[in-house]
């Protein structure tokens, strides 16, 4: 029988009770039945509201239109209505709570039998899952996010804002400095800072100002915020030097910055003369970097193939290592005080422990042309390198081969690269005047993840790790499309390397044992360490 009519018919009601008696639960009333009965009751008995009305007096009856309404009446009736509404809501919420509780009980107490006999083939199943995860990772690998265009010459240097993730500064080869907003992906300020190249740019640790050096032998300090309305774009300070400065870096805690050119100069921000200049030999130094952890340490690399370390407190250089070819720049590991990585002209990167410079900790090779810039991830686990071969690569610190290579058709020689402070993105500035924004993890989903998504992501990651040595998975995970130039270069260099190795092996084989020393790959590239 249809539900609604049930409560209205009296015989049916008797019926229901008799049914109950037959089944042996005459004294139990199911909730649905009681609800039906409720409507009956209201039909027979005066409703609750009526009783209330009686108690308060007939004057407050909201149904009677004849009675003139005073303020008290209105309040009374509204109160009654409110009560009714409350009651209804309460009933509703009670129902909701019941539903919720039931749902939770169902959700929580889903029994699960973990008996391995019931879930067989765990290894094959997980293998297939790992394979699928690896494939999906490749499918979703879309690292390129945006290209910031606006420079009118090649981008020569980049700098991160220390306090703001969205702000990036870049200096171009025509002396123009631009400040970009990454969230809006547009340029928010343009400064004609120098004549000729902007050789170096760095931000102050507090993020209120930044410094630039250029080919016009000047060091300029600029405010981070733009000039006021109608004001001229002017630097806060300008220092005119005697020689060209080729690089600049700011101290991580104090009002001190260091420039490099013919020597490494350390400047107080308030003075026009360097408070200390350190030199070791005579050659042009291409870059200088402060150690972010032990802030009195500096590293520089010069064009006579060496890397020099300095101690700012003792105003003296510490040690020099000479490599096979010139180092373009170095970068300190932000989590490990004594580790730095050098980007070399011989297509390799060298990670050194600064206390033992005679052997690099790791030689990173994959580039097929000179490495021009390197920057560490803020987590200190990986770094990104920019190369003349029109690609950027991401290396794990403890691996000699890169895990990722990014390139686009239009990206030319990449001159500078930076890893953003939240470790999620990579920016690179290249010859063809664009700054490109990449994801650090090519297949990562951007935005907020739900907990289930997160769990799935973690699980997939672990599966990929677990089965990474399996040939199919390894092949898929390593597969990258490369431009033809890079691909053919890799092939060529592989042949060359093999030939060299073969020759060496032959030489060892055909000479008196012990007369030809076996030099490990790591030691091969270090020419000398000068104390």
């Amino acid at each position: 029988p249809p539900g609604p009519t049930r409560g209205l018919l009296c015989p049916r009601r008797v019926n229901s009770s008799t049914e109950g008696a037959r089944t042996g639960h005459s004294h139990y009333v199911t909730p649905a039945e009681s609800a039906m009965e409720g409507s009956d009751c209201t039909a027979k008995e005066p409703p609750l509201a009526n009783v209330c009305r009686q108690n308060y007096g007939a004057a407050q009856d909201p149904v009677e239109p004849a009675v003139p309404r005073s303020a008290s009446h209105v309040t009374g009736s509204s109160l009654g209505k409110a009560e009714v509404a409350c009651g209804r809501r309460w009933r509703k919420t009670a129902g909701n709570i019941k539903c919720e509780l039931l749902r939770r009980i169902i959700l929580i107490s889903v029994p699960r039998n973990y008996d391995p006999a019931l879930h067989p083939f765990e290894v094959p199943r997980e293998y297939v899952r790992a394979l699928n995860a690896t494939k999906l990772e490749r499918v979703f690998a879309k690292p390129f996010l945006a290209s910031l265009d606006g420079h009118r010459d090649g981008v020569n240097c980049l700098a991160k804002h220390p306090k703001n993730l969205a702000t990036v500064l870049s200096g171009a080869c025509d002396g123009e400095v631009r400040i970009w907003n990454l969230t809006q992906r547009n340029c928010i300020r343009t400064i004609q800072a120098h004549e000729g190249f902007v050789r170096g740019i760095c931000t102050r640790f507090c993020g209120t100002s930044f410094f630039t050096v250029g080919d016009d032998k000047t060091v300029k300090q600029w405010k981070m915020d733009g000039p006021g309305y109608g004001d001229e774009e002017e630097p806060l300070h300008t220092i005119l030097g005697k020689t060209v400065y080729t690089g600049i870096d700011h101290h991580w805690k104090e009002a001190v910055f260091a420039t490099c050119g013919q020597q490494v100069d350390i400047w107080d921000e308030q003075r026009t003369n360097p408070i200390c200049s350190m030199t070791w030999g005579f050659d042009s130094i291409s870059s200088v970097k402060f150690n972010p952890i032990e802030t009195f340490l500096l590293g520089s690399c010069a064009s006579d193939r060496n890397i020099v370390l300095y101690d700012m407190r003792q105003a003296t250089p510490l040690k020099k290592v000479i490599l096979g070819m010139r180092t373009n720049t170095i970068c300190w590991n932000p989590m490990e005080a004594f580790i730095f990585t050098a980007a070399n002209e011989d297509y390799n990167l060298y990670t050194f422990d600064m206390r033992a410079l005679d052997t690099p900790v790791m030689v990173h090779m994959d580039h097929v042309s000179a490495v021009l810039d390197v920057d560490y991830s803020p987590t200190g686990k990986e770094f990104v390198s920019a190369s003349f071969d029109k690609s950027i690569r991401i290396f794990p610190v403890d691996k000699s081969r890169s895990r990722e290579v990014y390139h686009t058709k239009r990206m030319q020689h990449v001159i500078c690269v930076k890893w953003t402070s939240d470790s999620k993105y990579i920016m690179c500035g290249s010859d063809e005047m664009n700054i490109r924004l990449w994801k650090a993890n090519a297949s990562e989903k951007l935005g907020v993840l739900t907990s289930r998504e997160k769990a799935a992501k973690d699980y997939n990651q672990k599966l990929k790790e677990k089965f990474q040595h399996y040939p199919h998975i390894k092949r898929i995970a390593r597969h990258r499309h490369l431009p033809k130039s890079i691909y053919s270069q890799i092939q060529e260099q592989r042949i060359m390397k093999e030939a060299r190795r073969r020759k060496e092996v032959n030489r060892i084989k055909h000479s008196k044992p012990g007369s030809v020393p076996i030099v490990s790959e790591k030691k091969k590239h270090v020419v000398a360490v000068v104390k």
Partner: protein
Amino acid sequence: MTANRLAESLLALSQQEELADLPKDYLLSESEDEGDNDGERKHQKLLEAISSLDGKNRRKLAERSEASLKVSEFNVSSEGSGEKLVLADLLEPVKTSSSLATVKKQLSRVKSKKTVELPLNKEEIERIHREVAFNKTAQVLSKWDPVVLKNRQAEQLVFPLEKEEPAIAPIEHVLSGWKARTPLEQEIFNLLHKNKQPVADPLLTPVEKASLRAMSLEEAKMRRGELQRARALQSYYEAKARREKKIKSKKYHKVVKKGKAKKALKEFEQLRKVNPAAALEELEKIEKARMMERMSLKHQNSGKWAKSKAIMAKYDLEARQAMQEQLSKNKELTQKLQVASESEEEEGGTEDVEELLVPDVVNEVQMNADGPNPWMLRSCTSDTKEAATQEDPEQLPELEAHGVSESEGEERPVAEEEILLREFEERRSLRKISELSQDAEPAGSQETKDSGSQEVLSELRVLSQKLKENHQSRKQKASSEGTIPQVQREEPAPEEEEPLLLQRPERVQTLEELEELGKEECFQNKELPRPVLEGQQSERTPNNRPDAPKEKKKKEQMIDLQNLLTTQSPSVKSLAVPTVEELEDEEERNHRQMIKEAFAGDDVIRDFLKEKREAVEASKPKDVDLTLPGWGEWGGVGLKPSAKKRRRFLIKAPEGPPRKDKNLPNVIINEKRNIHAAAHQVRVLPYPFTHHWQFERTIQTPIGSTWNTQRAFQKLTTPKVVTKPGHIINPIKAEDVGYRSSSRSDLSVIQRNPKRITTRHKKQLKKCSVD
């Protein structure tokens, strides 16, 4: 003298020694003379030493005994030639004078001073600087070693490392350095000024300031405290009310209600004393409530609850009491107050109404409550007896007969039947008594019972006869005498006779019955769906109804119902059950046939066995037959090499190792390497593992949630590096890992210009060079 003697003895001794030494010397030394000379000198010295023992430091002139090296060509003895001439000796006067001490000192100073070395060249100095500085720096850096190691080995690193505190600058600070410059901004500021909106101190408008002035901080605090207290109290109260509401105890609620009523009464009393008018009003209210109660059927045992209770009331003491309570409440509410006096007639009238309304069962209960009701008591005892019969089925009929003889048939409660029905299954197994004796006994008992209600039974007898005629096909063995009582009340007896009775499906039974009954009495159809209630009603009605015919009618109905449920079943069973079973059988057969037809072609088991046999054959090593037909024999078509020859040139393959699936009949284990599987296998042991079983174990432990509990799954899949989106990760700091960061500024050290080698540096340098 003694000294001389001593010396002589010593001399002798030494000479002896020399003599003893001599042969050795002789053998070893190259020149004899030198050895002799040596001996001479020693002797001389010894003598001198002995002579000096005297105490007086006199010096004897050397006596020349023979040619020696000590004698110079100028005949001057080089006495004391071993001692060097010291400058001090020359200067020393006979008497030591203090005036020369200074000169001596100067001399010694001159002697101690060396020549000044040449200064190191600049490169060298710088190198030293560098080395020292490098060692120092390396030392400073080595404090990071444990931190770095820990971070490298960490299961999980969460970045940023330091806890960030959100720095919220007050708006005044932000806006203090800001000025309106563009025309638009200026315009806006003008507007703000006009409206007395705050510009410089943007937090407070004048109105806000005024309000601040109006209430002091203490007041605000106090007020807030009060509000908090009130809120807390309210929440406590709510919690308490909720708790009380949840209490299920009826007694508790009763007590509470009673307490409330008492309180109200007390208040009313007080009100009467204090304010009679208000009391009167109250009274009126009560009167109104009474009127409402009289109008309503609320406490009149007509509600659903009351009805259900009425059913239960017969067996349940509590239910009875509940009903009584309801009634008493009704009485209470409908009672007129003493203020208005009533006539007795009216009262009587109301009571009459009440009696009419109230079901009879309740009245019984009331009686029970007033005093011991023998009928009720009996029914109770009979119940217990019924229970006893369970234990001794042999005695059952007799006991029942006892009970029945004592009680009136009409008064017997339905419960007996129900209980018996329930116990039927258990008893069935125990029943071993012959049918005949059983038949006889219940019949006898029923006879005694019949005496109590002769008229009713006569009616029933007629009816049962009719029924019997209708069902001629029955195989039931019940005697003509026995059927009547069995039909009426005593179900156990027929049931005992036909144990299969309850096994047949009910639905079939009712349908059958319906058809049969429809021919006789159409009116019964209505009541078919609810036989139990009817039974109850019939149970209830006869008690208080004075008119007999009505009661009889009811009886008839009741009998039919009983029949429906129980007695007539055997016939139904004999007809219906087998046909149903046959149907089922047929269906199953059909089903099987269908499956057979569908899978006619493939015999999986035989195929598998064949496959396995083939696999075993294929894996067996093959014999090699090297016979060449025609070699050493006549050639030609159709000639076969002789058996002997074949035997000779057949190389038997050695028996291979037993197959792994030899003892597994349902399994084929392929022992060949599978190329397709090999493509998915790891060939070289990966780097961090040292043994293949380590690697295998890592692979074999599943990490998915299919095989692990939620928590284990989460633990197994924790990512190595966790970063928060949108958070800046700063380089590690000494404070982050618990080190003390140097308080010295890097800058201040430079300005002190430390470009000088200190003595400490020198020491370090020396250490370095030694190393």
